[in-house]
């Protein structure tokens, strides 16, 4: 039960304390606690079933914790909000398996992601304005999809889908980005590209990356949190963490 000094809370962008949740007796998270500072880029590693995705579910309001606090920007209690609200607060999430609107074009995907009024009627009578156009163009070039704008997302390569999804997150203009295994199934070249992309993004906002790929994490070169059995095992620089005995037997060992 390592409860953090709550003095970290007000200044943090994301604050988890003693979060636990269990499905049919299985404890997916066991009083998990950590803090993300504004503008921080944090990598989270851990073996399968360590609770990484469940953690994201909790932060994004998909799952309600049985116990514990989850605060955004120190003051907003996320456990009381649902996905849509949380997204509108400015928390973006990228899934493990890239999920984009396959039957829409790349352009439409981004257009839907744009952070505009999301009510029924405002979308019903929405018209694409000049600066919306500009914004989409910008993102298209950021995620290197400018030349595929009119293709259906279904026809993109796996890596491109990953990027499109990241692009959509950007269009959402979040303050906190949760990225689940962004380089899964990517070529080394793409992986390197993605690392750069994420660093770029992290300049303007906080990012949490869940990853298995240690090489990728080294490329990022950021603070690492290692989860196991639903709670934090070790935290610190990649070298520090990978030196930790428990981490080795729990994770790297295999």
């Amino acid at each position, binding site marked *: 039960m390592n409860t953090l000094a709550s003095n970290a809370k007000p200044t943090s962008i994301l604050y988890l304390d003693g979060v636990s949740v269990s499905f049919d007796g299985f404890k997916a998270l066991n009083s998990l606690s950590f803090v993300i500072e504004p503008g921080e880029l944090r990598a989270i590693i851990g073996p399968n079933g360590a609770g990484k995705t469940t953690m994201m579910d909790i932060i*994004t309001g*998909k799952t309600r914790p049985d116990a514990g606090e989850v605060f955004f920007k120190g003051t907003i209690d996320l456990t009381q909000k*649902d*996905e*849509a609200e949380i*997204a*509108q607060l400015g928390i*973006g*999430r990228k*899934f493990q398996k890239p*999920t*984009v*609107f*396959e*039957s*829409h074009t790349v352009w*439409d995907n981004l*257009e*839907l*992601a744009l*952070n505009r009024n*999301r*009510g*029924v009627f405002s*979308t*019903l*009578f*929405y*018209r694409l304005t000049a600066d919306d156009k500009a914004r989409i163009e910008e993102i298209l070039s950021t995620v290197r999809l400018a030349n595929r704008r009119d293709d259906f997302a279904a026809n993109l390569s796996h890596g491109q889908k990953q990027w499109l999804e990241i692009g*959509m997150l950007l269009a*959402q203009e979040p303050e906190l980005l949760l990225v689940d295994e962004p380089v899964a199934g990517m070529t080394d070249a793409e992986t390197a590209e993605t690392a750069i992309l994420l660093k770029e993004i992290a300049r303007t906002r906080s990012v949490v990356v869940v990853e298995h790929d240690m090489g990728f994490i080294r490329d990022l070169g950021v603070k690492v949190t290692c989860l196991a059995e639903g709670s934090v095992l070790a935290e610190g620089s990649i070298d520090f963490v990978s030196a930790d005995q428990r981490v080795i037997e729990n994770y790297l060992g295999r």
Partner: protein
Amino acid sequence: MITSFILKALDRNIVIVVALLLAIAALVPALNLLTSPDHPLHVPTYIVSLFGKYFTYALLALALDLVWGFCGILSLGHAAFFALGGYAMGMYLMRQIGARGSYGNPLLPDFMVFLNWKELPWFWYGFDMFWFAALMAVLVPGLLAFVFGWFAFRSRVNGVYLSIITQAMTFALLLAFFRNDMGFGGNNGLTDFKDIMGYSIQSNGTRSALFAASAIALALSLIIASGIVRSKYGKILVGVRDAESRTRFLGYRVEHMKLFAFTVSAMMAGVAGALYVPQVGIINPGEFDPANSIEVVIWTAVGGRGTLIGPIVGAILVNGGKSIFTAAFPEFWLFALGGLFVLVTLFLPKGIVGTARHFIERRKEYRKAKADEAARAFAAEPQAAE
């Protein structure tokens, strides 16, 4: 902003179909009324009322397609909205009979009289006015859909669970309307209509008018539906269909998105029902039968869900087939119908229109590829010459 909405709606295909429908709406009645029965171009009243009916079915299918094809909500209860609209109109037509009923009771419909009802139930008031009935024909289904959807979508009832409870809804309504105590004529429903807005319901003029009305209503709904699916909102609907959670995490209130589509669709179904009843001359609880709702799903699937024109084609094709088969080989037509459904699902998963569209796009791509090739070859030429 409405104009832009409509302009977006009118892409080429929609324009063609709408034009076609309007032409039919004008032409068929003319041919029916102005030409003599033995004239080669004469359209018999039988055909007029038949297709009037088909158009209302088509409208119902279109309404279902809006939620199923574009939002992935498979409603197995859409016939309920259709029937409710029908009952609203039926009640108006009942009140129009007035004192001309068998018992000459100015206020009470016949079925109430011989079951010894003493006064008119409260919910029958106002239905002597057409505008009120027309309003109810849209509002009642809309309201039901809104309330039902509000709960269902808020608590994230999805996929087959939703389908089954929509079925439960229509089944419950079926049983309820069968009860004579409900005051809707029980199993016999509402019949013996005399006239609508002062015109005899049996005159060819009225029939043609109703036919035209159905065609026009279909055309308008087609424009509205097309406007909806082509707007940003429409794209979100499709997003909900394909990746609901992604839409959520983009910050959209999926339940509101669904609710709006569901309600609009229910209202369209209500209009269809209201136009249907005066043309077939009866509305009874049988319309709530879950089997009917399933049939609507089938029309839509046959025509091609996720396309706007598909459901219209499907509804007319299947019902046309039904009309012909039930007369041509009454003993075996069910084999034909059943077979059709199996074959379509197996070999035309996109439905007729969907497949056709797919086919055409393939051909376009092919042509494009050809053209590029030629161009490249042409570009390559000179170098080869040097």
